[in-house]
């Protein structure tokens, strides 16, 4: 009886508290509804309009703007650049972050000093990072002339001024193999790696790898030492401990880091604009920069909106599966 009353009270409580919970989330939902989804909707609307000067023109033109966009040589280059940048940046940050974290996890004297040094670039804005690295990687200065300070010859790297794109040439052996496999279209600069982009990756990695290091460090610390100790007692080498115990347990950290890095790289703008801008032959151009210029320099508002819709679509392809996966996994736990 007592239990029944208590249960009913709990139930009533639950519903009214549930309502309160929903009420608590509603302001955020409303704000995001307007500032994110409302504005996405606005962009989508503009992206199918004829708006091509500062005077809005909402005449419906279907998917014309998207067709123009995918035929645009600059946009094709931008897609390649984004893919190259994202892959290199994420891999570099994860690798460097993990290496530094696992080194710091070995009872290092002065750990907090090292940690602060690796982490502090994150406090600097991308704009400042871009300006400094623009100097550091200038062909006739910076890193290139550093060896001359100890009597060696200057390096001759072009860094972000190097317009060359490394790709599979059609007449190379690999190119012929691709053609034979029906993948001949891959032997094309549009599927290559623009060397100048590597400089931007270096700067971005300088800024973000410390953050990944801290995430991994936190992850490593959360793994019970007994687990690793037990493995060592069983005769596992350090590499084996790493491969079979630490790395699998760090997978959630890796995924979170990938999402944070990935969304930064897809939206990257400040760093590029203050470091190399478009780069030689658009070698460091990115969609956000193209959108900014086509909208606010060229007044091609509908094209700009189309770029942002494509960028969002690209992000969704990456993020929705991840969110689906992580929410499902949570539900199973």
């Amino acid at each position, binding site marked *: 009886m007592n239990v029944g009353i208590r249960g009913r009270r709990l139930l009533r*409580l639950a519903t009214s508290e549930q309502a*309160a919970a929903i009420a608590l*989330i509603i302001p*955020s*939902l409303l704000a995001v509804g307007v*500032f994110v989804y409302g504005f996405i909707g606005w962009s989508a609307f503009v992206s199918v309009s004829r708006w091509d000067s500062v005077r809005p023109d909402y005449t419906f033109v279907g998917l014309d703007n998207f067709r123009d966009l995918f035929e645009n040589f600059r946009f094709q280059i931008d897609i390649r650049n984004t893919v190259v940048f994202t892959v290199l940046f994420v891999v570099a940050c994860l690798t460097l972050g993990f290496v530094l974290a696992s080194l710091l996890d070995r009872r290092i004297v002065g750990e907090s000093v090292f940690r602060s*040094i690796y982490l502090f670039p994150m406090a600097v804005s991308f704009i400042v990072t871009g300006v400094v690295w623009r100097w550091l990687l200038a062909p006739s200065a910076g890193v290139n002339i*550093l060896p001359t300070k100890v009597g060696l010859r200057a390096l001759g790297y072009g860094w972000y001024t190097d317009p060359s794109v490394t790709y599979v040439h059609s007449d190379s052996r690999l190119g012929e193999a691709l053609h034979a496999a029906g993948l001949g279209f891959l032997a094309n600069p549009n599927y290559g790696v623009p060397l100048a982009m590597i400089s931007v990756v270096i700067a971005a990695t300088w800024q973000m790898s410390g953050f990944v290091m801290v995430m991994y460090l*936190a992850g490593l610390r959360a793994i019970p030492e007994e687990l690793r100790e037990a493995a060592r007692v069983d005769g596992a080498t350090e590499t084996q401990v790493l491969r079979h115990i630490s790395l699998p347990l760090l997978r959630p950290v890796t995924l979170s880091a990938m999402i944070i890095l990935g969304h930064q790289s897809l939206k990257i703008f400040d760093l590029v604009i203050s470091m190399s801008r478009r780069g030689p032959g658009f070698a460091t151009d990115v969609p956000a920069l193209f959108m900014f210029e086509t909208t606010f320099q060229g007044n091609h508002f509908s094209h700009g909106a189309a770029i942002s819709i494509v960028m969002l679509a690209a992000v969704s392809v990456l993020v929705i599966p991840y969110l689906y996966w992580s*929410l499902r996994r949570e539900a199973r736990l």
Partner: protein
Amino acid sequence: MTVHWSRIAIYAVLIVFAALYLMPIYVLLVTGLKSFGEVRLDQMWDLPSRLRFDSFREAYNSLDSNLANSFKMVIPATLISCMVGSINGYVLTKWRFPGSNVVFFLLLYGMFIPYQSVLIPLVKTLQALHVYGSLWGLVVTHVIYGIPITTLIFRNYYANVPTELVEAAKIDGASIFGIYRRIVFPLSLPGFVVVAIWQFTSIWNDFLFAVTVTSNPAIQPATVALNNMAGSFIVEWNVQMAGALITALPTLVVYILLGRFFVRGLMAGALSS
């Protein structure tokens, strides 16, 4: 003995990386201490002929009121962001309701919107709210676009706060707000530190929203003033670099002071679901 050598190797690697990470700061500092005539790309590694703080003084003089504006905007925005994120994370972990995962997804997806594409509707919306052109307009903008990341961090963080604690309190008849105040909030410090650091840094360093929302130089944040120190044609790099360092100082201090708590917060589960 072998152990000894491997320790030395580890330290050597750590020190080499530390030097690499500090290299850009060395350039910033050395250039800031030079006179305009000494600033040359091919002499960037050289120390200044003599110490002079003129560039720092000049940079500070043109930035001081803007630094104050930045603080006036960043502090409330960070605090409100923390509160909003904390409450969202709390509700989404401890008071799940049908569709709460969908709500979480909808909130999170906002993280991926390219900000350059929202500027025009943003201005119109802020005008409708009568906050366009003011620091409060920036606060509103940053709080709203901060909802995804702050909610994500707190949701991950609270997922590791034992649900039994909350359930027990529910059975004892505590209200949703009472549980938050008495149980969840006191446990939240590490989460708050992570969110505060994240938001403080990104809001402080923002340029795009700042330049779009505030056009009156009297209220513009420091990043806009810093950008204006670079002329359209001639850039005084020494003053520019000094200004960049001054502008980065508050965030650097935050990182150095709170770095330890940052790691603790991350260990406690923020950011790793």
